[in-house]
């Protein structure tokens, strides 16, 4: 009864998407370029949506989730994660824009650059490229150069092409200009917040059928079941930052520029997608293996168990980094010898990203598999499995209807716990040289290229700090959230003395 509905929804979603693709392309004058990772991300989004629908109908899933929803820290973290995910999703819609039609041309020509929706939104910081390093909010390059002036050649810090170009005399104008901008941002944030607050109060009051004034008091006093106050505070901080960025991003390089003059803020934001892809797709790829093999080993036992145990012990015994290194090196050789496989650099880099997820998944499914095997053992001892056997229920049905639903909480805990570890792993692997493609924008690559500059005097610190702050925020939010999920779903953790 309950399984047919999600399938229906899935099919209708796919149908609608396919039906919309070509009219949209026509309308926007673009051509969609679905990368492999994009497609998998869409699959993941649909899976999460379906899971959400399931949760609404299943009491045993709804109750723990309600616990998660009531934790202020977790929900604040969720707001932060939401912002990251939003940026990541916008960055996962790739297309090529149509070029202006030349005279006498009938066919539309498309640009060779693959852009994402996010790229289009972030056009100012994407295209405003300087010559080299510049500090945050600076109007000058970071290194002295010989400049041609009417008075002759001077060795000085040259003005930036874009950053602070509206300032007449940067030394005087910059601070008042910034203070003014901050003040305006603050006012704008307050206005936005007011609207959001009223909307939230309205919907909460509507949903719980409480009076508007009471609802407002409850939210301000932090007495609501779902911690709206904490979420609103988090939201206001993010909102303020976003407003500041929107107001200043085309006038300054807020986080400076890197060695080749790219805006560091742009790089940091682009890295979000890479981090999210590694953190989620890895799990998505390994999940079917881990679940299937884990349940099979625990259910059938005997030689099937022996074989599966042998496979994961063998894979586990190879040090993770080395297995990844070996696989990535082999891939590199393969790609280098077959350069004709890809049209664009983006697609090549994307395949390497996907392969990294695959190999990371291959090294990390063993832990979950072993966990599931043990849990299946335990569940198999329970009477309801015996009862099913006494009815003559088949193996496949027993595994899918009786065992799987009773170990999903472990899978869920594994997914959320793995995420932050994988994001951190990307940085280390990129440092080692077996991470994402050097052309892929990622925090690991940012750190890797910036760390050598630590030796410079004065230090070029903004690239590193930006990468760390963005990464830290994501990982911390994910950790706080996963903590709450684990507390809610893990029956072994007791919250009392």
């Amino acid at each position, binding site marked *: 009864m309950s399984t047919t509905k999600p399938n229906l929804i899935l099919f209708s979603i796919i149908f609608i998407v396919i039906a919309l693709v070509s009219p949209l392309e026509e309308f926007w004058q673009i051509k969609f370029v679905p990368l492999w990772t994009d497609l998998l991300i869409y699959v993941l989004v649909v899976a999460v949506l379906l899971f959400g629908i399931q949760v609404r109908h299943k009491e*045993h899933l709804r109750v723990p989730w309600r616990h998660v929803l009531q934790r202020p820290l977790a929900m604040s973290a969720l707001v932060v994660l939401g912002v990251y995910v939003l940026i990541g999703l916008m960055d996962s819609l790739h297309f090529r824009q149509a070029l202006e039609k030349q005279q006498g041309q009938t066919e539309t020509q498309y640009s060779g650059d693959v852009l994402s929706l996010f790229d289009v939104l972030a056009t100012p910081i994407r295209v405003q490229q300087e010559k080299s390093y510049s500090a945050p909010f600076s109007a000058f390059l970071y290194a002295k150069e010989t400049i041609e002036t009417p008075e002759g050649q001077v060795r000085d810090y040259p003005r930036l092409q874009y950053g602070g170009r509206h300032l007449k005399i940067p030394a005087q104008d910059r601070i008042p200009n910034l203070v003014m901008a901050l003040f305006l941002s603050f006012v704008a944030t307050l206005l936005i917040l007011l609207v959001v607050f009223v909307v939230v109060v309205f919907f909460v009051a509507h949903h719980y059928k409480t009076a508007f004034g009471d609802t407002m008091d409850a939210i301000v006093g932090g007495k609501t079941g779902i911690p709206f106050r904490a979420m609103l505070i988090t939201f206001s901080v993010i909102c303020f930052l976003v407003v500041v960025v929107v107001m200043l991003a085309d006038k300054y390089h807020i986080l400076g520029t890197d060695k080749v003059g790219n805006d560091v803020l742009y790089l940091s934001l682009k890295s979000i997608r890479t981090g999210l892809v590694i953190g989620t797709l890895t799990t998505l790829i390994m999940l079917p293996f881990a679940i299937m093999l884990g349940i099979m080993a625990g259910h059938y036992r005997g030689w099937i168990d022996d074989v599966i145990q042998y496979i994961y012990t063998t894979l586990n015994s190879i040090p993770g980094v080395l297995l990844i290194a070996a696989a990535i090196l082999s891939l590199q050789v393969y790609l280098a010898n077959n350069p004709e496989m890809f049209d664009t650099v983006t697609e090549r880099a994307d395949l390497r990203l996907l392969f990294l997820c695959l190999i990371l998944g291959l090294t990390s499914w063993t832990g979950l598999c072993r966990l599931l095997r043990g849990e299946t053992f335990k569940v198999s001892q329970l009477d309801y499995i015996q*009862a099913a056997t*006494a*009815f*003559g229920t088949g193996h496949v049905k027993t595994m899918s209807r009786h065992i799987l639903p009773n170990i999903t909480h472990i899978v869920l805990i594994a997914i959320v716990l793995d995420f932050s570890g994988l994001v951190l792993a990307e940085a280390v692997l990129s440092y080692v040289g077996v991470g994402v493609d050097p052309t892929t924008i990622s925090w690991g690559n940012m750190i890797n290229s910036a760390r050598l500059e630590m030796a410079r005097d004065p230090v070029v610190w903004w690239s590193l700090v930006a990468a760390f702050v963005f990464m830290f925020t994501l990982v911390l939010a994910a950790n706080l959230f996963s903590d709450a999920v684990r507390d809610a779903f893990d029956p072994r953790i007791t919250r*009392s003395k």
Partner: protein
Amino acid sequence: MIATKQTQNKHKAKIDHQAPLLEVNNLKTWFDSRDQIVRAVDGVNFSIKKGETFALLGESGCGKSMTSLSLMRLVPEPAGRIVSGSVKLNGVDLLQLTELKMQKMRGNHIAMIFQEPMTSLNPVLTIGKQIEETVTRHKKMGGYSAKKRVLELLDAVGIPDPKQRYDEYPHQLSGGMKQRVMIAIALAGEPALLVADEPTTALDVTIQLQVLELLRKLQNDTGMAILLITHDLGVVAEMADRVAVMYAGQIVEHADRQSFFSNPQHPYSKKLFDSVPAMAKREHSLAVIRGSVPALSQQFKGCRFEPRCDYAWDICRCQVPAWQLLDDGQGVLCHLLDPRYASQAPDVKKQIAPVIRKQSANHAGALLQVDGLKVHFPVTKGLFKRTVGFVKAVDDVSLVIPKGKTLALVGESGCGKTTVGKGILQLVKPTAGCVVLDGAQLNRLKHREMRAKRRDVQVIFQDPFSSMNPRMMIADIIEEGMLAQRVGGDARQRQQRIDQLLGQVGLAPEAKTRYPHEFSGGQRQRICIARALAVEPKLIICDEPTSALDVSVQAQILNLLKDLQDSLGLAYLFITHNLSVVEYLAHEIAVMYLGRIVEQGTVEEVIHNPLHPYTKALLSAVPTIVPDADRQVIRLRGEMPSATQPPIGCHFNPRCANARQICRNGYPEALKISDNHRVRCFLYKE
């Protein structure tokens, strides 16, 4: 070996009219649980005199265990907290002490033993060390003298060979031995009060007897008082001087044992007595308490038992009853005994008259025939899983169940009775023997044929919590068997059948769309029965279906099983350790000991004329609620050995008082006493 119980209670005559040792006043212990407060203990008063045994009787969830933990101030924090009240031990209010001072009381003046001896001992410390800890903590002893004291204690609780046991770990001891160690730990501080929270519930009946006798003996020797928390009326009858009955967080009746057992006053107490199954009640339905225990998160306006009470009238709904003290010190929390209202009480005698059953007397042919069933589990060792021995869980068991009859398979834990059931169901592959159900030899069938045949034999398990998939709706759970066996017609017909089945087991059709956790233990067991009935089986194997349930709920299930047998002609293989259930329900009995049936026959024959020494001991060990001065108790030595290395000869010979040389040489053959009655013992000859 044989003694009457009455002799041991001599000293208790002296203990009347002393100042109370423990006084509990208005004790309230509450729990925070999911946005609501659960008032687990809600205003409990009682007192215990020096040297007496005070029993706190109640069913699960009534707050008796929480009361005992509150006395020790061991309520799990911060979820639970003692809200108000006082607990005075020798005049000192324990609830006012600092935690540091309370630590000096625990184990010293007031000690406790718990229900689960298996998990209550620290697995990585030797038992000697664990007892010594208490000795050094409270008795200022150390080194040699402490060890000497520990050995004394081990000896006192009847652990053979204390010197060797001192260095052993808990896992090397049996359940009964572990509980003795727990008692030794409790005794080490020479407490004035011992709190025993269901001390024998996890133990077999013969071991229960040993432990209860030990407690009695120790009380005699040391003069300590015992607060005995239990759900078992029989244990109360054997042990208690005074009794308090708890219901929904309150004490509803207290009395001395004599008055309580001869004249229970509260409607709840009366119902408890009525719902205990017994041979004498075979012709009737058992009395049941309708409904279930009220949620303790609510504020009660009236009597807490009112919704389930046969005598309730208007006043019970709107006014909280007050304590009524009767002449002999008996106290009851009930409007019926309140002089102000008693006259208004309606006459309800007729409503509760038990239904008389018709005994079906048809002698149909055999439905199930088990011949020489053996289930041996190999013990493997080494790289290539070499078989080095066998656990002979079931060793040559033969039995016959006629259509529409109940055979009870009785035995203590580990005797292999559950494995017999699984062997019949082909859930484990029998090593030898044959299982013939309705003409088909199950253990010879091919996998596919067996799947079809599974329709005829179904199973009900002991634990109603693990026997249903918590992730499935009730409708899906019941439907599963119909789908697997392709019975019940199309989807609509199946839904109708589910409604009908739920009705048959006394549940509303609305239950269909709910999940197992929304039901109480007894309701779940009903759903399990409905699930089994869905494929219209001829035989149901009931594996301890009522032993996880309270006695009043057990009565409901037993009634249901009997009704279904009468109306559908079902046969049951009833696997149990509970002899009073057997007396009530079964037509025939088979007694198992260590993988073999030692005696079998009709209920009347085996219960009234047991022949095998083990059967006799088993029967005599069951605590009875009817005082019987002539009752002879047979205490068995030791515990049932492991099936890996059964004793040579008759398996029972090391524990048998009548064992002779011949018993050590070989296993006795089955001896036919009458048409039905057979026994395997050398004491009897043709």
